[in-house]
């Protein structure tokens, strides 16, 4: 596959790993945070920790939009399917996320009409095919995905659809990064920056991290060579004593971002005054809601939802793992009460969750651990 395989070239990977070993000073312990869940997944999927020297520690950030959604919002979405007889549509990632009375898949098995889609356009198509039913799209994702939802709503308006709405749970990345930077637990010296979010918001958005906090950020692609090259670039900056934004993923990320995407988002969404993030608490201006001018497509305006706050089980340490304070395997429930098969929190089921990535790709099973 072009633009994929070249960036998995074994020889170049070994070379990049060697360069990293050359640059990393043995007396230092480096802590870099990869913000984006997609990077966490890539790091484990390609076992990149195996080729990095021991003194480079990768800290997993909160960039997993499914993981940061509080359980109460999952329940709100499920109430739409159960109480209002809607066709609830969601990405595959949402289907196994635990709600208080079961995941969407479990609710589906009990009769709720919940369907997996690969695009918000699939949900729109369902609405056109079933004019007699209400169709709701459970929208999740950072700025990578929000433009798709925005364009879908624009199309819904153009088509004059009367039975389609979106349950909007889009969140924005900058407030999350700021929350990490301002956290007293924060001991990260550089960032492997979001790759695909940056195709929308551009690289300029991260400059405050370098300017106000003195930490380098390199926006990175997702193939092994991308991540390794980003680490090389970070190490060089630390060596030089600079802190600036660099764009390793230049083949895809435009420095200024994507104007039509930002325009569509501005037309359809505005910012919620505050939103609750698992692990990070309430953060102001960190999530999107559907504008009043598009209220007919806002599931929260069309239907009444419980809006009950549900706290995670006490023993679950999802929040600390999301902030990078704990590694997945350090959570007391990891691999015991919480596994991909019976997850306690979303980090164990989302394809971008740190716990799922570690469990699926890195956990070496011993006879002591139940299969």
């Amino acid at each position: 596959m072009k633009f994929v395989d070249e960036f998995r070239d074994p020889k170049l990977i070994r070379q990049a790993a060697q360069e990293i070993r050359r640059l990393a000073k043995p007396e230092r312990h480096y802590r870099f945070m990869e913000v984006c869940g997609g990077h966490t997944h890539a790091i484990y999927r390609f076992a990149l920790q195996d080729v990095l020297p021991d003194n480079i520690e990768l800290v997993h950030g909160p960039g997993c939009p499914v993981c940061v959604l509080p359980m109460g919002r999952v329940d709100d979405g499920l109430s739409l399917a159960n109480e209002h007889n809607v066709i609830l549509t969601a990405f595959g990632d949402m289907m196994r996320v635990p709600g208080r009375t079961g995941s969407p898949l479990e609710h589906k098995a009990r009769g709720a009409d919940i369907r997996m889609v690969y695009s918000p356009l699939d949900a729109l198509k369902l609405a056109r095919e079933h004019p007699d039913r209400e169709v709701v799209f459970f929208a999740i994702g950072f700025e990578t995905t929000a433009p798709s939802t925005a364009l879908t709503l624009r199309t819904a308006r153009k088509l004059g659809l009367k039975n389609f709405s979106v349950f909007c749970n889009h969140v924005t990345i900058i407030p999350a990064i700021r929350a990490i930077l301002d956290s007293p637990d924060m001991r990260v010296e550089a960032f492997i920056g979001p790759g695909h979010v940056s195709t929308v918001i551009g690289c300029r958005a991260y400059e405050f991290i370098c300017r106000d906090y003195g930490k380098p950020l390199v926006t990175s692609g997702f193939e092994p060579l991308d991540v390794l090259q980003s680490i090389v670039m970070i190490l060089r900056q630390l060596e030089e004593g600079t802190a600036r934004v660099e764009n390793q993923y230049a083949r895809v990320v435009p420095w200024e971002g994507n104007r039509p995407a930002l325009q569509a988002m501005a037309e359809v969404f505005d910012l919620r005054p505050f939103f609750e993030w698992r692990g990070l608490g309430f953060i102001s201006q960190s999530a999107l809601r559907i504008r009043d001018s598009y209220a007919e497509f806002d599931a929260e305006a069309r239907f009444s939802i419980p809006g009950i706050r549900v706290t995670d089980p006490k023993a679950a340490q999802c929040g600390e793992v999301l902030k990078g304070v704990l590694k997945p395997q350090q959570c007391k429930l990891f691999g015991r009460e919480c596994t991909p098969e019976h997850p306690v929190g979303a980090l164990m089921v989302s394809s971008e969750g740190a716990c799922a990535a570690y469990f699926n790709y890195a956990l070496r099973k011993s006879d002591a651990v139940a299969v």
Partner: protein
Amino acid sequence: MVAIMSVPNNAPPPVRFRDPQIEMAHGAGGKATRRLIEGLVAPVLGGPLLESLGDAALLEIGGAGIALTADSFVVRPLRFPGGSIGDLAVNGTVNDLAVGGSKPIALVLTLILEAGLSTEVLEVELRAVAAAAERAGVAIVGGDTKVVEHGKADGMYITTAGIGLADRRVRCAPSLVKPGDRILLSGPIGDHGITILLARGEIDLEADLCSDTRSVYPLVEAMIARVGDAVHWMRDPTRGGVASALNELAADARVGIVVAEDRIPVRDEVRGACELLGLEPMHIANEGQFLAVIAAEHADAALAAVRGVSGGEGAVIIGEVREQPTRTVLAASAYGSSRVVDMLVGDPLPRIC
């Protein structure tokens, strides 16, 4: 599986299955399926012959070794590029017998038909069954038919039982699998599952792909004829894919398995579809492939034998059995790292076979 083998035959293991209801995942061929079988089905139905949880049971009756297997087919849509439910029913059963180390002889077939099913569709499927049986060299010797209300059977479900004659040249069991043994895969993976997914028409993907449904008996037979009891274990990786089959082996045999990521054959189209949809090719069902574990010194000969049969040209040795890490399957990359390949969790593609 370990629990069953460690308990004396006269004390059935306790029922350990605690899920309150059955979910789609329990039929997906991954972890949930295994928990259901090990935790509820096997303990209740009991018996030493269920121990091996293999594809076919081996019964000794009056000096003859008889292999017996059962299977069920609930695919939607009924017809797809490369075949139909009729083909799956015959080939799937024949393959269970083949990888169970027997020569497939005969099948009985039951049809559960949904009221409203078009007779033409039924006739087409019966002809498919007859043609597949002839190609596979087996006889259909009986069956049953039931009709259920509209909405209850996705058109048609087929269940089968198959009988074969044990091939005395080979004996397969997880206990015979040893560190150092090599793992053979007969051809590219993922064709069937992805074909079904695309045939559903729910996803806007198009590819030139067809199901790999076929009898693998000629390939298996050629391999056994060449290396005999150097074959220690065989499995056809249907639901749950190669990953689930190898994980079951690793657990049953208490060994580690390492496969070379870049040696596993995957067609471009399957790879492309999996990348687009976020699926793992090793978790996708196959209906015309088999895995075999072969003693190291005979692996090359076994491979040559399979490759020498028409349809076996794509066979490769994909990895080997190790002592550590036990009960774990690893995929090694070309640049010196490795990741765990876990059993399928959940159900990415419902109703594919």
